[in-house]
């Protein structure tokens, strides 16, 4: 039975596992290439690491300085976020096959057959191990493809993969505690992000050894599975023993979870579900109220993310730019790439604004995809069987997404503006540079809404692909040496670049117009087709 279940799950997940392997390989490969091409010489790498050691805000997001070889820079720039990616992958994988299945009743069906109570769980755990190995291999290959030494490459891959494995255990345990898969995912993702920032604090506060540009992080880093991954120090110290910590966490969580599972009823959780309201508050009554209620959680999270990004950019502008300029070499070149020839600090403002815009556009992409999710889950049919018209239903969700992204950018612009000094751009430049991202952001809403109306089954795929490619072309295109026309495809290249000389406002207004036309077209087109519930 265990074997049958495992084969069944492998077959169901094979495409996802493959795509994830590919994504991890490409991510790792891209970071490696960036290291190789942007900081090709030892001197350039040394100046880059030097900048980072004096900029805790960068270490917060990156890692522990461990020297100046190509591998050392790879570990510093890539390890923490690649490990975080693997953690997310395993969180979603484990939740999908445990609590989510239990919630939809699939587990009951299996548990009532000859399969033992725990056989499905053993199959999921094996699947998690297989996913870990795939991640390990993919990341290692990504390093090797850049010509990095084999031992360090394997250890880099193992570090990230084992961080993921430890979270497979954590998620499996959470799945025993909470009765709803959303809650399980929410907690696990939050813990993963917390562990990212716990090690970030450790790195930001680390003791720097200037003689060889290495660092010893604060003790707090040892509380984080990502910290353990970094502690392997691939290519520098090549330590294997920190991998045991991740394995141990996985093992402990698994044993506890299995013990709980053996004692509880299928479908039940250890934590009780919170009670809801017995009647609807006035704010919920109506399609906008419904959309707002459904989007509320993710909207708040995204708005905070946009504000935090803008805040970081605005407050860092002065110091980072000074240091980058004085350090010279590749780091400054990177900034100048985006500068369009203006002063370097203005180039930084421009990057900060575009980056905030990209985050805010995720709100619109997600908001339009929500239409399809509602259609699949039959929330759309429930509303459309009432007196609410199709246009009203659709526009309510689109409106909430549009307003959410606009609010995030206005607040982000205010915060960045207030935090910046006149030397680092000033209020006016920061505020308007960020606010003028709105037309680009709204384009995503229009495009994804049209896809929803015409090709509903492709909504999520096309939506995130458009988002990913816009970022790839817009942010990394020049770095990766892609032809110039590719970056013209992204809306962010057509907003007036307030921070740079001669901003072109036409592009902004044209995009506002196009977005309105696209949304109107999507509503008309949706009225021509059947609703298609079910994936």
């Amino acid at each position, binding site marked *: 039975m265990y074997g049958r279940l495992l084969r069944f799950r492998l077959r169901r997940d094979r495409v996802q596992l493959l795509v994830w392997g590919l994504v991890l390989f490409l991510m790792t490969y891209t970071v490696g290439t960036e290291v190789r091409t942007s900081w090709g010489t030892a001197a350039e790498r040394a100046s880059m690491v030097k900048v980072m050691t004096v900029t805790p805000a960068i270490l917060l997001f990156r890692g522990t300085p461990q020297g100046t070889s190509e591998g050392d820079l790879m570990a510093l720039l890539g390890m923490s976020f690649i490990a975080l990616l693997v953690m997310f992958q395993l969180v979603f994988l484990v939740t999908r096959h445990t609590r989510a299945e239990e919630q939809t009743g699939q587990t009951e069906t299996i548990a009532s057959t000859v399969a033992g109570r725990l056989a499905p769980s053993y199959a999921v755990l094996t699947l998690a191990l297989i996913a870990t190995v795939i991640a390990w291999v993919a990341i290692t290959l990504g390093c090797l493809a850049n010509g990095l030494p084999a031992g360090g490459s394997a250890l880099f891959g193992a570090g990230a993969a084992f961080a993921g494995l430890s979270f497979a255990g954590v998620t499996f345990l959470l799945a025993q505690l909470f009765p709803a898969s959303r809650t399980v995912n929410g907690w696990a993702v939050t813990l993963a992000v917390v562990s990212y920032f716990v090690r970030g604090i450790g790195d930001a506060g680390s003791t720097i050894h200037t003689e060889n540009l290495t660092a010893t992080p604060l003790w707090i880093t040892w509380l984080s599975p990502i910290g353990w991954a970094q502690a392997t120090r691939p290519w520098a110290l090549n330590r294997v023993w920190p991998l045991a910590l991740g394995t141990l966490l996985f093992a402990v969580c698994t044993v506890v979870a299995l013990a709980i599972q053996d004692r509880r009823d299928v479908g039940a959780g250890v934590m009780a579900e919170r009670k809801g309201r017995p009647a609807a508050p006035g704010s919920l009554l*109506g399609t906008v109220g419904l959309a707002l209620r459904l989007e509320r959680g993710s909207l708040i999270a995204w708005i905070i993310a946009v504000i935090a990004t803008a805040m970081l950019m605005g407050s860092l502008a002065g110091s980072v730019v000074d240091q980058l300029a004085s350090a010279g070499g590749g780091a400054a070149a990177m900034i100048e790439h985006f500068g369009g020839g203006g002063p370097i600090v203005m180039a930084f403002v421009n990057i900060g604004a575009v980056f905030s815009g990209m985050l805010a556009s995720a709100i619109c992409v997600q908001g339009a995809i929500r239409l399809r999710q509602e259609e699949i889950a039959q929330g759309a049919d429930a509303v459309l069987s009432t007196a609410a018209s199709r246009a009203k239903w659709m526009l309510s969700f689109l409106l909430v997404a549009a307003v959410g992204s606009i609010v995030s950018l206005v607040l982000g612009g205010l915060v960045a503006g207030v935090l910046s000094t006149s030397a680092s751009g000033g209020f006016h430049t920061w505020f308007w540079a960020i606010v003028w991202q709105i037309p680009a952001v709204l384009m995503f809403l229009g495009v994804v809404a049209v896809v929803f109306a015409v090709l509903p089954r492709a909504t999520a795929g096309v939506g995130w692909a458009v988002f990913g490619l816009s970022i790839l072309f817009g942010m990394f295109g020049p770095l990766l040496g892609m032809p110039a026309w590719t970056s013209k495809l992204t809306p962010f290249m057509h907003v007036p670049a307030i921070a740079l000389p001669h901003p072109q406002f036409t592009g902004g207004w044209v995009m506002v117009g196009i977005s309105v036309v696209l949304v109107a077209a999507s509503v008309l087109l949706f009225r021509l087709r059947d609703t298609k519930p079910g994936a």
Partner: protein
Amino acid sequence: MAAVIEAHGLTKHFGRVHALDGLDLVVEQGEVHGYLGPNGAGKSTTIRILLGLARATGGRVSVFGQDPWRDASALHRRIATIPGDVALWPNLSGGETIDLLVHLRGGDTKAKAYTDARARLIEEFQFDPTKKARSYSKGNRQKVALIAALAHPAELYVFDEPTSGLDPLMESVFTRQIGRIAEAGGTVLLSSHILSEVEKLCTRISILRGGKVVESGTLTELRHLTRTSFSFERDGLTDAQLAGIPGAHDLVLDEGRVSFTVDSDQVAGILPSLGALGVAGLQVAPPSLEELFLRHYGDVVDGTPVEAS
């Protein structure tokens, strides 16, 4: 005046699948109309077209004389519905969902008539409205849809397998509610694959098969198409005596009992001859809808009771 629901030659194709294949359906004002057919017959597809969620490939269809596709939102002020597959917003409570759906139908959720009706239904269905929808069982999700549909009056009720997931006690509560609607003059279209339910509730029935209505009429009308079964103790009666019973079909002699069937409109004619034979232990079973059903689906369901899915 036109019928509440009228469909003529209705077709719906999904690629090569012909879910509806020239369907005719008429539901008159004040009827509780049973829409009967096994899974996959096209019940849900019909209902999705009547609600303007799907568009007919061909044929004519009207609800209250209007086009359900074009005039969907205006029509829905007059219609209450329960979908075949009740899905709810996981993080809304049951009570919130009920209020929201009623509000969207045009009901005033502050009105006393509504709050009273809602409270009564919650009581009768023994429903806890404070739980988040994600933690409701199938039966409880069904109750959310039922209460939302019943708590605010409508002119037409369209129910797609409304009792799936309900226990027998709750089914009887539902039966009472349908009775209440019928008394108040409401019109109901009730799709089901459960014969006993339709038999109990409906004044007219349409039987659907392969996307077509193959039989439609009142229960009595349809019963004329069936046979009534008789059985009694053999008690030494000879084969020749038994063969002399007029109009008897499917005669079976078994373990001392005789059984046979008679066309339902010939029942009265047969009684004198049974009296003359002096039969003992006579049992007469009126035709069940199940028999009627089996006549149409016998080849599909292979004679097993048609409650299976």
